[in-house]
């Protein structure tokens, strides 16, 4: 085989090698990310303390009284359809409040709502921790925090 042809085919092989290496690398990154997500989802299922909100007074939100709503680790409450927990009450702001799970405790934080977030009769300023049985009011909707 003449020298030139050997060199040509070697160059072609190297050229394919570059593309193959690039995509194999990207594939390993995707596999890694997928594995991470699976591990995290499993860890979350095991560890999330189950928090629920019980509807006491649905206001005009169309919810049913007594309904229990399970909380996500980050629950955004608001009138917007993009909220995790949609409360379609006219006095609830588009994005009203956020409930967060941190250090295995539930926290609530107002998201700049017009009418404020009221916990046990008091309008909250900064972030505050929620305990079992706390009563929340957003707009005309009244809810009770239930931990189990």
């Amino acid at each position, binding site marked *: 085989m003449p020298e030139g042809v050997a060199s040509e085919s070697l160059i072609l092989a190297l050229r394919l090698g*570059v593309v193959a290496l690039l995509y194999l690398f*990207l594939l390993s990154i995707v596999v890694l990310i997928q594995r991470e997500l699976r591990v995290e989802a499993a860890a979350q299922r095991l560890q999330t303390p189950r928090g629920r909100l019980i509807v006491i007074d649905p206001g005009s939100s169309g919810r049913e009284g007594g309904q229990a709503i399970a909380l996500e680790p980050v629950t955004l409450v608001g009138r917007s359809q993009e909220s995790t927990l949609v409360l379609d009450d006219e006095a609830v702001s588009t994005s009203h409040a956020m409930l967060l799970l941190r250090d295995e405790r539930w926290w609530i934080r107002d998201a700049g709502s017009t009418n404020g977030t009221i916990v046990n009769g008091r309008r909250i300023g900064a972030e505050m921790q929620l305990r079992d049985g706390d009563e929340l009011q957003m707009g005309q909707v009244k809810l009770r925090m239930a931990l189990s």
Partner: protein
Amino acid sequence: MTRAVRRVELSLLLYPTALFATTTLALQLVRGAQWPAANLTGPMLFGSLFLAVHLVLSARLGKADQALLPVAATLTSLGLAAVDRLEPSLAPRQLLWVAVGALALVFVAALVPSVAWLARYRYTWLVAGLLLLGATLAFGVDPNASGASLWLGFGGYYFQPSEIMKVVIAIFFASYLAEKRALITHAPVRLGRLSLPPLAYLAPLTVMWLVSMGLLVWQRDLGAGLLFYLVFLAMLYAATGRTYVGIGLAFLLIGAIAAHGMFDHVELRTRVWLDPWPYATGDAYQIVQALNAYAAGGIIGSGLGYGYPEYVPAVHTDFVLAALGEELGLVGTLAIVGLYLALVHRAFRIALRATGDFAALLAAGLGATLGLQAIIILAGTLRLIPITGITLPFMSYGGSSILVNFVMIGLLLRISAESPGPSRRHD
């Protein structure tokens, strides 16, 4: 210090090393070298360098993110391949800068006392950064005739202070927003249906932003000006979760229109962007040549060493993707876009898991800087947006850019090492 086995990182680092060896070999064969005589010193140095960084990380920061360094190394290896292809005489110098960058990465990742320490001295960094930037007004030089004097020279080596400002701005914004977040989020000024951030709390940010923008406009460094502004918006959004972005983009548009009327070089860029063809041999030469290069590459490319990227001016710095687009084709460019996506993914993941608002915002800011910078220049060379001179992170030739990109990776690694992993949730 416990030694952790960072097996994922080690195995992922094999790819960039093999990639650089492959491209080096291919280029040497194309240039007429014979197979057994091929010289693989560069890839071997590259491999040992990243192995050394890996070992330091294993010894000092066992819990740091394991995919970040390999992604950065892969982009770097493509950058080295591009410099070797386009300006072979500069290749050793670029490798030297990568080594300096790796040293800086290790320094930042392992020796910075804590992430919070960075926030404590934020005004120090800011003043130092602005002084350096201001110094380019008085002593700036333009070593490669780019039309803007953005460099400071020291005995044959040139340094670009606006690169350092990327890190300084991310640190400053992150620490300021972390401190004032509640105030900025909870007391918006309403203007009809729009909510504006309360201006008093944003004053220091605005002043800082105006100073850097002023310098950049004065210096004709449009790319950096655009990048700083977008990073500012991204971090404001990350800190407050409020969509000030709409108003921010409106301001950007007003600024762009004003700049268009006031500065000839902005007007020229826009004109050439809207319709380059009448100016194809003059003002639009660079962008037209870049488009030709992409087109010539097609889907699979001409193969490394077989294209004619030398027709694109500044091809080894800002337009490096045009060269790779020609020689590696769409297949190669898409992989590069994928690599930047992976980089941004790691940065945002680190931000989400970080302890404390400052660390989280800093990681988000660094991720946004790297991602937006890649988008601005990639879209610019493809004529999706007007071209603004800015380097492609990890790939463009240039010492300050490489150095600062590695410093950013060092900071991200440090932040991720200080974050609790999912396994620690139960302590």
